[in-house]
């Protein structure tokens, strides 16, 4: 069984559980109130539909009726996870060092995740981006659009 097929089944099962959770929550919110639809009316049908469609997808996948052309190649999958992790690390780090310093570190990190080959020229390019991008971001967002950027202990 290919990785894509396994992930397809896990994803369909996850959506099936999500549908069940939505239905359960909808009942708790109240399906009807005084003979008119309550806060749970719409979520109930959405959850039910999602659970039913996901069950169909799961059965189709298990029976082998699902044709998936795409492949989950390991390097791209890991790069996706790594880039997502770097963005999340940027979110956390911004609270401590400020957004500009955090993005200055995140950009070369993402660059090296994508490239994964060290050359002096690439390192210099990344260093230039690490300095240049925060400067441009400060001018565009901080000065021009007057966005209150999260600042760090250095005052920027």
């Amino acid at each position: 069984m290919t990785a894509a097929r396994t992930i397809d089944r896990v994803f369909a099962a996850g959506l099936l559980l999500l549908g069940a959770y939505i239905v359960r929550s909808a009942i708790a919110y109240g399906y009807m109130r005084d003979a008119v639809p309550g806060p749970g009316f719409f979520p109930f049908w959405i959850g039910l539909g999602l659970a039913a469609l996901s069950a169909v997808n799961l059965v189709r996948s298990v029976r082998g009726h699902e044709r998936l052309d795409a492949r989950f190649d390991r390097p791209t999958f890991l790069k996706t996870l790594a880039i997502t992790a770097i963005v999340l690390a940027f979110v956390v780090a911004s609270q401590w060092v400020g957004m500009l310093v955090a993005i200055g570190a995140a950009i070369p990190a993402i660059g090296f995740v994508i490239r994964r080959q060290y050359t002096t020229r690439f390192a210099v390019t990344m260093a230039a981006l690490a300095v240049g991008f925060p400067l441009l971001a400060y001018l565009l967002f901080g000065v021009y659009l007057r966005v209150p950027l999260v600042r760090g202990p250095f005052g920027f």
Partner: protein
Amino acid sequence: MESFALLLDGIWQATAPPLLLATLIGVVIGLIVGVLPGIGPAAGTAIMLPVAVGFGGTAAIAGLAGIYYGAMFGGAVTSILLGIPGDAPSVMTVIDGHALARQGQAGRALGMSVYASFIGGAIGIVLLAALSVPVAQAALAFGPTEMTALICFALSLVTVLGGRNVVKGFAALLVGMWIGMIGLDPIGGPTRFTFGLAELFDGVDFTVVAVGLYGLSEMFVSLSERTTGAPAEYRFRSLLPNLRDLVECRSVLLWSSLTSFFVGVVPGVGATASTMVAYAAAKKYSRNPDEFGRGAIKGVAAPEAANNSASYAAMIPLFALGIPASGTTAVLLGGLLMVGLQPGPLMFATNPDFVWTVFGTFWIGNVMLVALTVLMIPFLAAIVFVPTAILYPAIIGIVTFGVYSINYSMSDVTIAAAAGAIGYIMLKLDYSPVPLVLGLVLGPLLERGVRRTLIVSNGDLSIFVRQPIALAFFLLTAAALVVPLVARRRATAPAPRADTASHLS
């Protein structure tokens, strides 16, 4: 005629320096976005939405729309030079455009793409001006019941938009509708699905999810795709269209622009389908159909005129009915809401200056694009060769700052990153992101419509079929759901056995 007078006035208003600047920025970014493989107009508008909204009012929408039709122009560049479609509507251009490039006629193909895009855009704008008011006036007859039925119809078009797997398309639609329900109940109820997080009380911003789903996930997917082919050689002078080609393609350009407008105006069908229809028609009625696929200039003219005409057609359901016809117009809808405008039938009555000035910026933008595309083609082509390891970190940087700028919230950046990773998995598993975004935008409107209608009728469901317009839309919805299923069943039905066939004959 009144519409054209209003359009002329709108064009005049659109020449105001702030609007010219916003349009220029939009079309330049759109051209660049269109050139980037994997990042189409939807991603471009989504990424730039927070920045463009900072322009404010008309300038914001002029900038966003500029990205949309600029990307339509730019999408042809990589299609022709590299054989890589910058976005889905550019796929048909690859077939003959890249074949011409391999024959050393890249300039001829690029020139035709610019000219065809301009003609398609110009015809699209004229039709947009002529038809948007009648459509909007007809839409004024719509009450909550009719709008509910119309939204049901738009959502049913997931059968077209939902990709190859319709079941997965509808599952994605329902996930989008569920995300749209997060936060306070719109009719005075409790908070729903917030998991106790105060950040979710106001709901999940549409833009945040769209940026992740379109911008980030498509970048992730493209990390695994290798760029193939070498850039074709061309001379600057050769970018100007060949006069003989223009004469030869005149009927194809006119026909493709007209038909594609009416295909593109239907919510859910969009520019991609219109290019296929235009290409098929051009081939069918050509005197040399065998040339198609091997470098027919009409094979470039038809889809390029079509996708630009359809991109303006998609504005009719957006502005007149408040219904996004595609992923890109869904982002534009978000932009309109963010600048405090509710698109719909009343918009033409309450904000005519805004509407016609925006339409005027479309015209100005179309003219700008002809000059810019010719001048910028060498630069645009060079962007394709910027390594992803340099380009993508910069784009992700813009995305994170842009998303933060919407609500000044780092939680939004977290949601966008999660949407990007989940969107990557969805794309790989054939779950189209378009239904999810449509569900997120239209789901809350549908819920409000259904619940308000049922409150008025004291829970009597028959109110939905008592109104003739609503009934018509529900019948169309049923047809949109059933017809593709029947067509698919017929297509997959086993062919009659030879002996049976001969016996019957």
